[in-house]
């Protein structure tokens, strides 16, 4: 069943950055060129208003989004996506920024490292182990996990715990649909996800002065996992996921800080106990299990009241107020009724 979720904060798709510019590559090219010129103009004029600079960035001037290498079956399924299932009025973060400014420490801690290094990740064939409290555990080919489902496009805000944010057009399948296919038992209270652990493919896992233990582990409460907003993404900007964005199969939980949205998943385990997640293990006083976007609860070392919507320029840093639950409160606030979110951060 397809959900057409529309909330008060949304305006029709016609008001998004003109007509999904990325679906029409020629138009995308013209757009990005125009934005780049506008950006230059703003820089030269030495003044600008916030908001105007939303899409300013140094675009590859050929304007064509490079096609991602990947298995044909996946391409075919991703490209048949149902557009506009969930949208926002905000301007999209340009493709070039979404695919070149990444936190994916398995490929290095610099923002540009994943783009530089992720070519060593082999995403085909890809299998996922499903285990724990499910009636149908086993090791599954990614193709068999995805095949029964239709792909949906969902444009979500992504708020990083480092106080920057993006707006990203994902393509994927609601996690609930995927989980149901393995028939969780009544004991399944949490879902634990694990990223591939292979230092040969993921050079960042060899790093010596890092504080994280590999493999990367994340988790959700079962009701969070089953929420219609929670997505398993296999695509981005009308194509399959680039490696640096977590190919071939990643989680997207838009009301939580970005580190919850674990990438390149090889294991899904349903459990009775709350999973021990990577960042929580590394610094429990700074990163909690829930990690809901919350301007009222600061990171101990910096404020979470504002965010820089990327891309910014120095004259227009796009500094905006952070919304509780990243603006998805209407859909998810009920999940946390009666909980002290200062304690369960």
């Amino acid at each position, binding site marked *: 069943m397809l959900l057409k979720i529309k909330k008060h904060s949304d305006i029709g798709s016609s008001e998004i950055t003109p007509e999904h510019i990325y679906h029409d590559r020629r138009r995308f090219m013209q757009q990005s060129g125009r934005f780049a010129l506008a950006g230059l103009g703003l820089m030269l004029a030495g003044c600008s208003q916030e908001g105007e600079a939303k899409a*300013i960035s140094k675009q590859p001037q050929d304007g064509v989004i490079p096609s991602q290498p990947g298995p044909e079956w996946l391409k075919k399924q991703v490209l048949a996506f149902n557009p506009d299932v969930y949208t926002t009025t905000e301007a999209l973060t340009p493709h070039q920024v979404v695919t070149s*400014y990444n936190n994916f*420490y398995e490929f290095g*801690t610099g923002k540009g490292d994943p783009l530089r290094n992720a070519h060593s990740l082999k995403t085909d064939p890809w299998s996922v182990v499903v285990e724990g409290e499910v009636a149908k555990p086993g090791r599954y080919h990614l193709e068999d996990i995805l095949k029964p489902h239709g792909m949906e496009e969902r444009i979500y805000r992504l708020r990083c715990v480092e106080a920057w944010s993006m707006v990203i057009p994902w393509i994927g399948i609601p996690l609930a649909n995927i989980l149901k296919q393995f028939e969780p038992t009544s004991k399944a209270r949490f879902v634990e996800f694990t990223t591939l652990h292979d230092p040969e493919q993921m050079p960042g896992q060899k790093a010596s*002065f*890092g504080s*994280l233990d590999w493999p990367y582990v994340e988790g959700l409460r079962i009701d969070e996992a089953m929420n219609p907003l929670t997505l398993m993404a296999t695509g981005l900007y009308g194509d399959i996921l680039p490696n640096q964005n977590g190919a071939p199969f990643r989680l997207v939980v838009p009301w939580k800080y970005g580190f919850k949205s674990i990438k390149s998943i090889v294991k899904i385990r349903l459990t009775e106990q709350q999973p021990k997640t990577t960042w929580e293990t590394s610094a429990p006083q700074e990163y909690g299990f829930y990690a809901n976007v919350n301007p009222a609860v600061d990171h101990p*070392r910096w404020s979470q*009241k504002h965010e820089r919507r990327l891309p910014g320029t*120095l004259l227009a840093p796009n500094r905006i107020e952070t919304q509780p639950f990243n603006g998805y409160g209407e859909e998810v606030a009920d999940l946390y009724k009666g909980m002290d979110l200062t304690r369960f951060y």
Partner: protein
Amino acid sequence: MDRVANIKLAVFPLSLFPLADLIIKALENNLGPDPASALTHGLGEWALIFLLLSLAISPARRLTGIGKLIRFRRMLGLFALFYAVLHLLAYLAFMLSWEWLTLLEDLYKRSYIIVGAFSLSILVALGVTSTKKMMKRLGKQWLQLHRLVYVAAVLAVIHFLWLVKSDYTEPVIYGALLAILLLLRARVFSFGRKR
């Protein structure tokens, strides 16, 4: 004009090169999608580099026997102060949009900011008292006051270390360089006493 003065004339614009590079990148919109953060971190890192360079002068003099090197020390120290002040201004202008209240909140809540602020305050005090006039006026106290540069450097490294999320490589490298520079001094002091 002597040779040292000539070299100083060359070192001065060279020291401005990192700033010019950052400004050109900013104007070309070439600092990445988060230029506020890139600029602030870049300026902070250069402040630390100049601080370490100024601390390297004395050991370098002892090791090479070139006494004239001392004439570069004040200039390098003042460049450390220069970049540290720009670092603070970039933070205030581009990260906080001039929200002074947020800065005040940072100054009592966030340990890495507090430590950075202490380090910068020391550099300001040393900068203000760096003239020949002040040297004469303060006499013996001048040396005691300027020994605080060691504290400023240690605090600057801690400031860097505490803002890192997970990858400590860079601050560990700077910390190791600082440790070497301080250890060289400890040895020099003990030798000096024996002689």
